[in-house]
Structure formats: C-alpha cells, structure tokens
C-alpha cells in the first residue's frame, strides 16, 4: 500500500451529506489505553518503544482483518507523508512530533485508526457521520473488548484506565463533533458558546490549525472530563449539546438572511470570485474562502456546488496534500500558494 493511493479518494467521513451536513463535518470518538509493565511514552527508551510497538501490533493482527487495514511505521515516513496522514486526521500532530517507535493502523475507509505510542501506548479512534453514531461506538467498543480479551490494560479500581495525562484518566474517552459555525463567528457569538460549553464540562477548540485559537469558522466540541461518568453518558453529553448549537447557528443564519441578504450574498459570491481570480492563496485564506462558499451553498445562494466538494477542498488544500499531489515538485518561480490557488480553481470549475 502506498500513501499516494489515498490521494485519489476523498476521506470517507467527509462524505457526510446527511441531515446536519450543513453544519456537522464529522464526529469522532477516541479511547486511550496503556499496557502494564511498560513506562508511559514520555519515559520510554527507544528500545522499549520498539518492544511495545511490536507487542501491540501483534495483538492488533489477531483482532483486525488486516487485509482491510493499512499499517505504517511513522519512523519510516517522510515529513510530508507524516503531515499528510495528520491532515487526514489518521494520526495526531502529537504523534507526528513524537519520539521513539510509532505506528498507525487504519481501515481502508479511514474510519478506524489505531495509533501506537502517541501520548498513550494506544489511541483508538473512529470517525463517523451523524447517522452512524450508534453503530460507531458499538464497533469501537467491540474492538477494545476483543483486544482486552488478549491483552491487559493499565487499570485502577478507583481511577479506571490509567493514562499518561490525568486529563484522560478513567474512561480514556474523548468524543468530538466537528462543526462549521460561520454565522456565530461572524456575529461574534462564539464567546457565548464557549462559556455555555464550559458550564456543561465541554470544551470547544478550532478544528484546523495549530494551538488554541484555531483557524476560520470550523470548531470541535468535546467532553472536558473523562472520569466519573460512563462512556455512554459522556457521549450523550456531547450529543445533547450539539443540537442546541446547530439550532443557534441556523437561527442566526436565517436572521442574517432576512435582515442582510444582500451583504451575505456578496460575502459568499465574493469568495467564489476570489478563488477564480486570485493567483496565490494561503491555507488560512483558503479556509476563509471555503467557509464562505460552504455557507453560500447551505443558504442556497450558490447553486451547483456540493458540500462534499467543499469538504474535500478543506482537506486537500493543506500543505502536504498539495505537496503530494505535485510529488513535491515546485516549478521555477512557483510557490505553494500558487499551487493551492490552482487546485481551488480546478475544484470549482469542474
């Protein structure tokens, strides 16, 4: 399996065209687990990390249908390939930057991914669309149960599953929903959402970009606590709050449409014109433009563009996706910003 084969496909989970696709990009559940008698990753020697990686991989081989999975040792991959996987959310940025032997095993449809030696020995995640919520947790639970039948995980009767960072202890479960909230952002109302989320032990972060601020109008809502509630309750907390945010975003969208239709129309169409005319576009700018077009499509101001296409653009306009699409070659006087502008032009003229 070559990484470049992945290029041909849109990430499956971005194909969400269901009921809430106007706002919800995807959902994710992640479980953290560690193996007894091995130090946590930050205190692990190179040698131990190699031992742990092959120990866990051998267990995965026994549980997973490996013909439906890809397996990569991160230490063997180029910088571009590492970021490429991270841009597709198959591995985390922490996993890219980590030390020691690290690997990822992910399903061909890119919905399941198992990172070895990230912050914890094992990070299992499933990414899914809205209508797969129930079945996805069930599948992830099945997988962890099957693994636990053949390997012990670090566990304490009081504290639950033990993790390198106490913020993940207990269930080790983090559930996130990725949301596109341009109207709330435009009207400066995200502050209220942050505040309300905090009150119910949820946390909101930017979905794209490094650090805390994030970029553009894309956010992820996740549970802040992992201990003291069971897995279903934690998932339920996020599930019960997200519809409130959707309702709020939609009501602001409708209000803007009623009171300021001309301005919104201009905002969305201008983004489309910019993409057609601009010869250099930065990543940050591409997020801004794609967000405006996405809003325009969802408000039916821009016809004949599918949400899927925009979601695809969100992933493929990242640096390493562009680099892989040109096999890393830049022509004379060419910049990645030019490649990105051309990619976006093609996306919207086809």
């Amino acid at each position: 399996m070559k990484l470049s084969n992945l290029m041909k496909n849109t990430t499956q989970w971005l194909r969400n065209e269901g009921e809430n696709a106007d706002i919800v990009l995807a959902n994710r559940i992640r479980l953290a687990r560690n193996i007894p008698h091995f130090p946590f990753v930050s205190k692990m020697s190179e040698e131990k990390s190699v031992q742990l990686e092959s120990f866990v991989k051998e267990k995965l081989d026994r549980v997973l249908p490996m013909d439906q999975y890809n397996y990569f040792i991160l230490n063997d991959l180029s910088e571009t390939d590492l970021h490429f996987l991270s841009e597709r959310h198959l591995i985390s940025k922490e996993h890219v930057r980590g030390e020691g032997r690290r690997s990822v095993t992910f399903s061909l449809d890119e919905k399941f991914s198992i990172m070895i030696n990230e912050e914890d020995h094992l990070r299992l995640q499933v990414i899914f669309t809205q209508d797969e919520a129930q079945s996805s947790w069930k599948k992830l639970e099945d997988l962890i149960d099957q693994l636990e039948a053949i390997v012990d995980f670090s566990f304490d009767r009081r504290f639950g599953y033990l993790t390198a960072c106490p913020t993940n202890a207990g269930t080790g479960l983090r559930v996130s929903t990725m949301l596109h909230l341009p109207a709330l952002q435009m009207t400066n109302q995200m502050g209220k959402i942050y505040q309300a989320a905090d009150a119910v032990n949820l946390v909101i972060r930017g979905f794209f970009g490094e650090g805390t601020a994030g970029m553009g109008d894309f956010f992820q809502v996740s549970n802040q606590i992992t201990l003291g509630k069971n897995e279903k309750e934690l998932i339920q907390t996020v599930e019960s709050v997200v519809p409130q945010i959707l309702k709020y975003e939609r009501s602001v969208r409708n209000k803007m449409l009623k009171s300021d239709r001309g301005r919104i129309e201009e905002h969305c169409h201008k983004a489309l014109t910019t993409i057609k005319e601009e010869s250099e576009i930065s990543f940050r700018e591409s997020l801004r433009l794609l967000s405006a077009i996405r809003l325009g499509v969802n408000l039916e101001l821009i016809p004949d563009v599918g949400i899927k296409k925009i979601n695809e653009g969100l992933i493929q306009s990242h640096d390493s996706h562009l680099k892989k699409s040109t096999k890393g070659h830049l022509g004379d006087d060419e910049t990645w910003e030019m490649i990105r502008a051309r990619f976006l032009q093609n996306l919207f003229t086809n």
Partner: protein
Amino acid sequence: MKCEKCNKEATVFFTEIKQDEKKEIHLCAKCAESYQNYIADPHITHSISDFLGGLLQIFASKEQTELKETSKDVCSDCGMSIHEFHASGRLGCERDYRVFRSDIKDLLLKIHGKSRHRGKVPHSLQKWKDLVDLRKRLNSVINQEKYEEAAEIRDKIKQLESAHEA
C-alpha cells in the same frame, strides 16, 4: 421564554447536565455576554493542556509547603518526581498513580469533579463492578424504604458472590 437572570426575552438556550439531571438554561444575549470577560482569553477554555497547566499552577502554589515534604517521593520504576509531574502535567508510568496517589486523587477531583471511575472495567473485574453497582443500588432503595426491591437486590448480590467464589 424568559431569561433566567433578568426576565428579558431569552435568545440563548443550553442543556446543562449535572448529576445526571438534564436542565434547560435560557438566557438573554446580554446575560450570556456578561461572561465574556471570563472567556475573552481563549487560553482559559480552549485547550485542555493549558487548562491543566493552569490547574497545576494553582495546585502548586497552594500546596507549596506540603509539596516540599512529599518531594522526596520518586517513582522507582520510571524516576518521576512530583516536581517533574507538576511541571510537565504528564506521568511517567502506571505506578505513579500509586506513588503520588493522594496528589493525583486531588488533581483528578479538580479536573473531573470526581475521582471515582464509573465506566467500563476489564472483563476480570466485571463481577466486582456488578457487585459495587448492586450494593450502591441496595443502599439507595433502602433509603427510599423500598424493601421488596431491596430483598431482590440482596438475592442478586448473594448469587453473584457465590458465583464469584466458584
């Protein structure tokens, strides 16, 4: 719908979940905004690691004296000390949860509001967990004076306990 704080028309709706009880909160834009100062600094709420770092700092300054006394404790497996943990926010091995048990219990309480796990357990502990859950339920039905139900639960506990020994 009226704002719960000032009785004006409410425009912001949220579901709050506390102690397993769902509660709808209704606020007007202004009251919701009055918290803006608190959340104006995105570092406060956006990032879990920053959040933890902040907690650890509070934790460290509050318990400086206590910290010095326990600072001799070092995990013999991975070499982690309480100071190193406070600085990095990461533990070195599973044993650290025992070595620094009371510090970690306090910290978990601060982070999660609870320090007792309620989720999945390993297969080998499933019976133990069922017993813990049943005893908890037994206490609550006895408090509610539902004696018939209590008798049923006692039977189940007995069954499980005898199966446990087998």
